[in-house]
């Protein structure tokens, strides 16, 4: 079955980001197709490549990146939510004349249309709120 996952919680602000990751991993292990993982609100913080938790703590940014690479996941970060929280890709950094960019590999910035598309194209959609 085709599932989409909406993630609204940041890795540090709530448990939601970790639960969403576990759910996605379990769904893939069961052979389901993940149509899209959409990061919105504070969920976008998971896409920062600069997150550097201590070694004995879970590094969700890396975990998502690795899961995304393994399964070629469409991991979309809402561009408006990301920009205002300082998560930028090279193109946006240039456009807004910022000195650095930090969008982690495997994530894509795009618009809320991708959330609506997921709502229409997926068999199931589940939200992990903060």
């Amino acid at each position, binding site marked *: 079955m085709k599932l989409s996952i909406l993630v*609204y919680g940041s890795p540090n602000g709530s448990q939601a980001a970790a639960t969403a990751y576990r759910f996605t991993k379990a769904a893939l292990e069961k052979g389901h197709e993940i149509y899209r993982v959409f990061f*919105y*609100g*504070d969920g976008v913080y998971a896409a920062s490549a600069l997150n550097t938790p201590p070694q004995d703590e879970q590094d969700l940014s890396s975990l998502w990146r690795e899961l995304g690479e393994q399964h070629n996941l469409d991991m979309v970060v809402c561009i*408006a*939510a990301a920009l205002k929280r300082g998560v930028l890709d090279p193109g946006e950094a240039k456009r807004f004349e910022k000195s650095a960019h930090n969008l982690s590999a495997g994530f894509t910035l795009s*618009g*809320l*249309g991708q*959330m*609506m598309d997921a*709502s*229409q194209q997926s068999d199931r*959609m589940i*939200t992990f*709120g903060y």
Partner: protein
Amino acid sequence: MSTTAKNILAVMRTGPYGNQTAKEALDAVLTAAAFELPLSLLFMDDGVFQLLPQQDTQGIGAKDLSATLPVLPMYDVERFYVEQSSLESRGINSAELILPVEVLDSEQVKVLFAESASILSF
């Protein structure tokens, strides 16, 4: 897209300014409207506070959501529902709200949930 589209229920449960949720939920709703997706909005819990009149956000430096919500009917979003018990427990009269809402009791809210094809939980 709209002819075969799944109808969406957006559940708005947070007050307008304590965090970004109401603002970002409204952005999502406006996007759904721009895509001409069939859309209903249910305001419950503190979400009903989004609909109070006389919001003046100058003092807190936030964008006034009550100025944006009334544009939704111009995008053909016309199904606005509020949960009766959320209104009652907050002492709000539906006639004073900034959108023309239909008040639903809990049985009607259950039907609304059951009839939607896709839920956006905010």
